[in-house]
C-alpha cells in the first residue's frame, strides 16, 4: 500500500505541471489584462505597471519565472488586491471555506447515507417515495434561492440565527453549512438508495437472509459496504468542490472564504490569483481521488493495488 501511495503521489507532479501550464497560457490568451479599465491609462504608467509585474517580458520567460516561484511555494502578488500576495489571500480565506465545507460534507454524509439506505430498504413504499421526492426538491432548488429562504425564516421571521457575517462561531455557521449540505444530502441519498437496491438483490444478501440474519444486520454488516462504493466515487470531486467554497453562499452570507476568488480572479484578470486557486483546486482533486482509491481498497477486499503491479 505504501509503495502504491508513493507512486500515486509522484504521478501527481506531472498532472499538476500540465494543469499549471494549461491554466497559465489560457488566462493570458483571454482578451483584456489586469490593468485595463474604463479610462485608458497614460502609456508611461502602463509601462511601469508592466515592468513591475514582469508583463513586459516574453511569455516564455514569464512562464519560467512563474514555475520557479511556485516551486518555492510563492504564488506571487495579487494583481488586483494591492499589497496582498496570493499566498496571503488563500491562507486567510481557505480555513473559512474548509471549515464550512468539511462541516457540510460531514452533515451530508451523516444524513444522506442513512436516509438513502432506509429508502432502499422500503423500496416503492411511502417512506421511499417521500425521501426521494424531498431529495429531488433538494437537488432542484438552487442555493441562491435556498439561502435567502433560510435567512428569511431563521434570521428574520424567527430571529434565531444571524443573517450573515463571519466569525468562527456555531451560530454563524449553521445557515451556510445547511445551504451547502442540502443538495449534497439529496445527491448522496439518491446514490445510496440506487446502489443499495442493487446490492439488496445480490445473491449474497439472499444467503444472509437464509442464514436468518435480522434486517438490521443485513443492512449494516452485509449491504452497506458495497452500497457505499458509488458514494465514495462521488465524494472525490464533490469534496474538492465543496471545500473550495461557493461564490453564491459566500456572497449571500458575507463570508470571507476563497469561493469568490474563482470568479473575481477571472473577471479581474488577476493572473496570479486565478493560478493560485486553480492549483489549489487541482491539488485537492488529485488528493481526494487518491483518498477515494484508498477507501475503495479498504472497503473491497478484492482490490489490492500493490499485488496487481507486482
Amino acid at each position, binding site marked *: 500500500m505504501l509503495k502504491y501511495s508513493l507512486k500515486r503521489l509522484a504521478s501527481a507532479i506531472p498532472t499538476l505541471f500540465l494543469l499549471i501550464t494549461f491554466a497559465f497560457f489560457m488566462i493570458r490568451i483571454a482578451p483584456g489584462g489586469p490593468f485595463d479599465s474604463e479610462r485608458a491609462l497614460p502609456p508611461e504608467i502602463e509601462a511601469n505597471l508592466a515592468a513591475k509585474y514582469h508583463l513586459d517580458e516574453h511569455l516564455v520567460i514569464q512562464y519560467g519565472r512563474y514555475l520557479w516561484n511556485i516551486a518555492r511555494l510563492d504564488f506571487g502578488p495579487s494583481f488586483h488586491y494591492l499589497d496582498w500576495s496570493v499566498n496571503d489571500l488563500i491562507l486567510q480565506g481557505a480555513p473559512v471555506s474548509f471549515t464550512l465545507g468539511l462541516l457540510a460534507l460531514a452533515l451530508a454524509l451523516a444524513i444522506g447515507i442513512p436516509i438513502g439506505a432506509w429508502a432502499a430498504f422500503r423500496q416503492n413504499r411511502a417512506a421511499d417515495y417521500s425521501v426521494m421526492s424531498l431529495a429531488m426538491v433538494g437537488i432542484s432548488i438552487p442555493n441562491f434561492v435556498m439561502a435567502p429562504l433560510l435567512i428569511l425564516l431563521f434570521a428574520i421571521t424567527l430571529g434565531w440565527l444571524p443573517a450573515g457575517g463571519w466569525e468562527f462561531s456555531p451560530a454563524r455557521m449553521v445557515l451556510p453549512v445547511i445551504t451547502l449540505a442540502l443538495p449534497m444530502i439529496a445527491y448522496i441519498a439518491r446514490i445510496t438508495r440506487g446502489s443499495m437496491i442493487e446490492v439488496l438483490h445480490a445473491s*449474497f444478501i439472499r444467503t444472509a437472509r*437464509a442464514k436468518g440474519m435480522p*434486517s438490521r444486520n443485513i443492512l449494516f454488516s452485509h449491504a452497506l459496504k458495497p452500497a457505499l462504493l458509488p458514494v465514495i466515487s462521488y465524494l472525490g470531486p464533490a469534496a474538492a468542490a465543496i471545500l473550495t467554497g461557493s461564490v453564491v453562499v459566500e456572497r449571500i452570507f458575507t463570508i470571507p472564504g476563497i469561493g469568490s476568488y474563482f470568479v473575481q480572479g477571472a473577471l479581474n484578470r488577476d493572473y496570479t490569483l486565478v493560478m493560485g486557486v486553480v492549483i489549489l483546486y487541482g491539488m485537492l482533486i488529485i488528493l481526494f481521488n487518491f483518498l477515494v482509491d484508498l477507501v475503495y481498497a479498504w472497503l473491497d477486499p478484492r482490490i489490492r493495488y500493490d499485488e496487481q503491479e507486482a
Partner: protein
Amino acid sequence: MALLEVRNLTVSFDTPDGTVHAVNGLSFDLDPGETLGLVGESGSGKTQTALAIMGLLAQNGRVSGSVVFRGQELLGMSPGELSRVRGSKISMIFQDPDSSLNPYLSIGDQLIEVLTHHRALRRREARARAIEMLGRVRLSDPEQRMRQYPHELSGGMCQRVMIAMALLCQPDLLIADEPTTALDVTVQSQINSLMGELSEKSSTAILLITHDLGVVAGLAHRVLVMYAGQEMEMAPVDDLFADPRHPYTEGLLNSVPRLDQVRSGILNAIPGNPPSLLELPTGCPFAGRCLYAWEQCRQLPEFEKIDEDRFKRCHLDALPTKRESA
C-alpha cells in the same frame, strides 16, 4: 410425524406480462433424516418451491397453501420468528457458491455471525466452532481460511464453506438447490459424497433440488419428479430408476446419455418445450410433449397412489412396452 409437510403449495409472480404460475398445488412430505430429490427441468418450479419454504421469494411473489415444519406453519410467519428458524433449523445452500458468499466479508466473519446470532455464542467460542466445522467439510488450513475472502477460494471450496455455514447449527433440514451444478465434475462428486456423509452422521434431512439424475441416484432416498409446478411422479429412488411409471420420468431417464449404448451421435431429448407458465393448459401439462397422450389427457389427472410409496399423475395405467431407444 413428518419433519416437513408441504400441502397444496402454490407460488405465482405478478409480472408486466401477466401472472406466472411457478408452483401449482404441490404437496409432499419429508421425514427426519431423509433425502428427497426434487427433479425436473428448468422452470419446473423446483427452486421456487425451495424459496417459498424458506420465505425467500422475490417481492412480487405470492404464495399460498401450507408448509408445516415440526408442527409449525412457516407461511405467514413474522420476520422475527422466521429469522430464528432460518439458518438454525432449516438451512439452504445455493447453486452458485462464488456469488452466494459475501465478497466484502471474510469467511470467518460470515461463519461466526451465524453462531453469535442463533446460539448467542461469544466470538471466541463461535470462532473455534467455525474452525472445527471447516475441518469437517475437509477444507485444508481451516484457520487460514477464516481470514480469507471468497475471491481467494475456488468454487468447490466456496461450496464447502457454504455447507459448513449451513450445518453450523445442526439444522433438521438442509435445502440444497443445485449445489453442484456450477462446479467441475470431479469437484461435484466430492461435494455430493460430503453432503451424503454429513447428513448421515448428523441425521439432517435434505431436500435436494437438481436436474441431474446422477446426483439423485447417488444421494436421494426418494424422488419427486416435477413438471410445470406440479408433481408428476414420486417413488423410492431405486424403483424410479428401475421402473418409471410416468411418461415424463421415462423421457428424463432416456435423455441421460449412456456409455453402454450404440453411439449414434444423437442425444435423446424430449421433443417440444414446457408449457408457458403464464397460461397453463387445463389438462395434463405434459400432454403436449407426451408420446402417449390421448383424448382423456385434456383433463388433469389426479396425483394418486399406485403402489406402496409410489404416486403418479397420469391417466395411463401402465406405460406401453419400453421402446428400445436408438
